[in-house]
């Protein structure tokens, strides 16, 4: 961590000539007798993305983002300002704007404190430079060739390869400094297949907080290409999805998006402090079947949603949200935790220096149960086996949530039969998990492609679950 901090200072502060004394000056300006909390957040991001389409390397893009966000909190009020040009003058001006929520008045000077050593969850090296450009291109061409060779019905292949390197430094009003260097890579494959005039598409991909070697190792990239083709070919055979309430078996891994939408958002601290969530004031109540234990775990090494420290400098944590079906706790940032008299849980996250931190999920998953997945499928007379999803959404107040099937099959007499077309599933958060009647022993985490949006801010997240049987959920098909 101290190493990370040195790296962050060197990346963020030194080039702009910002010294510890300057940081103190800015913080002194930001805080006044009426300010309860304040922080300075510095960020330096580099992102590179490549697109292969139509068999050629069509696009390459480099994005540079840098700036500082300044926040002052007084009671339930927050003042916020940011600047892209890092120099003392701009920082002081931003501090002036941000503290306008309270009346001026100095409250003495703060001293910069040291910080604790923390085990980092991911390597600090720059993933943009982890492979030479020629090797990135070659990798994408290999994936393209793999997908096209997999089946003559493949008509179009698009490969995307993204590497990001994010360095942050945050200082709070007690002078505590924290820093993090976060790598993030992602690779996606989209294919379009055609058979007798019918066209279908599918996506596959993965990612992690490591570097681009991740896609070379264990042939992961090639695996995404094969997986996208497999799914697209399945879709060519898909029949109309039945409409109505039915038993649904959710496969392991990415279908954990159910947890993210059905309960995750509803357990974020801000919504609960304000009484906006269908889960507000329900700690200690049964909100899921006793088979369900759900955690939000930011401490998994190299996972897409993991954080060595969050964007307020709090170390990432493993927080139990639901244990044996009982609601145990919320996910908190410092602001909401303070107002609710709770502890922050390391869930204070922001898209960038130009956004305010909010309580957000990291990696949200359900712990495994006892059942063999085969037994779970075998127990269903008529239902749906949902293996893959495209995304979801929730209204945290009414609790209604949706998530969209991208690969699913009918279950008839305990056997998987015909594939069905994509459709939306809809349920009610506080009810859906009470209908979980079987939990598999096959916990899987998603492949590392999730992005969550809230209040216009996007952050990378992870989900996971074992195979689950939900006794009744509404399936939005067309077939009656």
């Amino acid at each position, binding site marked *: 961590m101290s190493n990370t901090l040195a790296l962050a200072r060197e990346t963020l502060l030194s080039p702009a000539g910002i010294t510890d004394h300057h940081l103190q000056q800015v913080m002194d300006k930001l805080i006044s007798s009426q300010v309860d909390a304040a922080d300075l957040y510095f960020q330096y991001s580099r992102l*590179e993305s490549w697109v292969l389409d139509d068999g050629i390397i069509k696009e*390459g893009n480099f994005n540079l983002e*840098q700036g500082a966000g300044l926040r002052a909190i007084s009671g339930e009020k927050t003042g916020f300002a940011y600047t892209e040009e890092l120099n003392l003058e701009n920082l002081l001006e931003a501090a002036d704007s941000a503290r306008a929520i309270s009346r001026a008045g100095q409250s003495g000077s703060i001293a910069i404190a040291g910080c604790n050593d923390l085990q980092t969850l991911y390597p600090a090296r720059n993933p943009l430079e982890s492979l030479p450009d020629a090797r*990135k291109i070659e990798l994408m061409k290999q994936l393209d060739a793999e997908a096209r060779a997999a089946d003559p019905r493949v*008509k179009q292949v698009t490969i995307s390869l993204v590497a990001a390197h994010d360095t942050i430094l945050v200082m709070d009003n007690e002078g505590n400094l924290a820093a993090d260097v976060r790598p993030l890579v992602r690779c996606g494959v989209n294919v379009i297949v055609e058979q007798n005039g019918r066209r279908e598409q599918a996506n596959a991909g993965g990612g992690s907080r490591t570097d681009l070697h991740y896609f070379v190792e264990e042939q992961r990239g090639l695996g995404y290409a094969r997986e996208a083709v497999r799914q697209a070919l399945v879709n060519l055979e898909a029949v109309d999805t039945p409409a109505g309430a039915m038993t649904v078996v959710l496969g392991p891994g990415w279908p954990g998006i159910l947890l993210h939408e059905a309960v995750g958002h509803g357990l974020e601290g801000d919504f609960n402090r304000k009484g906006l969530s269908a889960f507000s004031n329900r700690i200690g109540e049964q909100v899921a079947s006793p088979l369900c234990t759900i955690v939000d775990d930011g401490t998994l090494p190299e996972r897409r949603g993991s954080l060595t420290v969050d964007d307020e400098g709090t170390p990432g944590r493993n927080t139990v949200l639901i244990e044996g079906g009982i609601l145990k706790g919320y996910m908190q940032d410092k602001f909401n935790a303070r107002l609710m008299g709770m502890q922050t849980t390391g869930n204070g996250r922001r898209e960038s220096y130009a956004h305010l931190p909010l309580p957000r999920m990291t990696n949200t998953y359900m712990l495994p149960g006892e059942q063999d997945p085969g037994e779970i499928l075998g127990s269903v007379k008529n239902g749906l086996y949902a293996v893959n999803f495209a995304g979801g959404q929730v209204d945290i107040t009414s609790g209604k949530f*949706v998530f969209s099937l991208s690969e699913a099959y009918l279950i008839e007499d305990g056997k998987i039969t015909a594939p069905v077309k994509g459709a939306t599933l809809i349920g009610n958060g506080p009810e859906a998990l009470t209908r979980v009647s079987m939990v598999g022993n096959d916990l899987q985490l998603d492949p590392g492609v999730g992005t969550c949006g809230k209040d216009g801010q996007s952050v990378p997240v992870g989900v996971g679950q074992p195979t689950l049987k939900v006794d009744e959920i509404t399936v939005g098909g067309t077939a009656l």
Partner: protein
Amino acid sequence: MSPSIEQLEQMVADLLAEARKLGASAADAAVSSSAGLSLTVRMGETETIEHTRDQGLGITVFFGQRKGAASTTDLSPAAIREAVGKACTIAKNTSEDDCAGLADATLMAKDYPDLGLHHPWPISPDEAMQTALQAEQAARDLDPRISNSEGATLSTQSGSFIYGNSHGFVGGYPSSHHTLSCVVLSEDGDGMQRDYWYDTRRDWRKLATPESIGRQAAQRALAKLHGRQLGTRQAPVIFRADIAPGLLRGLTGAIRGHAQYRQASFLLDSLGEQIFPDWVEIREDPLIPQGLSSAPFDNEGVVTRPKSLVENGRLETYILDSYSARKLNMQTTGNAGGVRNLSINNGSMGLDEMLQEMGSGLLVTELMGQGLNPVTGDYSRGAAGFWVENGKIQYPVEEITIASNMKEMFRQLLAVGNDNDIPGSIRTGSWWIENMTIAGS
């Protein structure tokens, strides 16, 4: 201090010169800068005051038929040099692409009109707070069942944008954008509901009053109380005007050149085909004064013009930038960067009359999830709204889905209402679709 138009123009000129120096045969660049205020009040108190200051620069370079791009929010000379350098390095690694390049020089906008997009709002944080408070208070005062609030937000932005390319084209203009929104919760012992309303304008003087926005948010939240599920069935569906723009976006997504040449569209090769009933006319007008999506030239400097997308129900044009146009052996339609200000013609019926005509069916007022497969047109989304019988709203419904195929939905469009007074850049009334599958309990 925000940079002036002249400074932005100079930055674009410098960028293009730097790209040329590094060996680029052609290049274009865009620079923008804006500043503003976003203030939220909740339960009668200020909650957040955000002073926003956004700037950014993007450059695309061509080395013959190879392309590279970069962007930065840091406009310091060092960051700009890094970005241009990276774009050039990338261009050396991308493939030769016959269709890559700037739009033709002859298509560049020349004497383009001033569309009146810039109306900065000289409002102090205190005044902004008062305005937002009025909206929230109006919502909370409407009914005791308005039990809680997510707040009211006033946001105002104003800035400038310059685009230039190595044809010698340089153009730009200042613009502003103001939004007032309110989100409240209703509750009466049987669960909570939330809903919102808003208005958004180029000219702050044209914004709906805070009171009307607050009241509408409250009315919408109250109307949702006691929602029930419907039984699974097929029925006619009316998409209320405020969610109908999503259907037009489904159309424009499918007729974009990119979707056509990749054969990733449910309206593949439909130029000249009947895709709607013959009374349907859909137009794009990028030149509407003060229009939210108005622009005198597109993201490649190409002059923009009003045009028909659909006439007599037939598809008249794809939506093309120069790249997709070359791919399809066509001419760009000046749509680099998207579609600007869409509208659909409407009949004489208001929403009440449409409900009357429909007799029984579903009025959808809210949609959830993505639910459109762009390749097949298969459509399935979470929905909420009202069940209608005998031409009258009977009760609110929730936790249902509606499904069909978008091609089918377009063909089954029975009427568009004249209730087209909705905020945003898309002008449409409510859409009445003959039949969809509703899944519920």
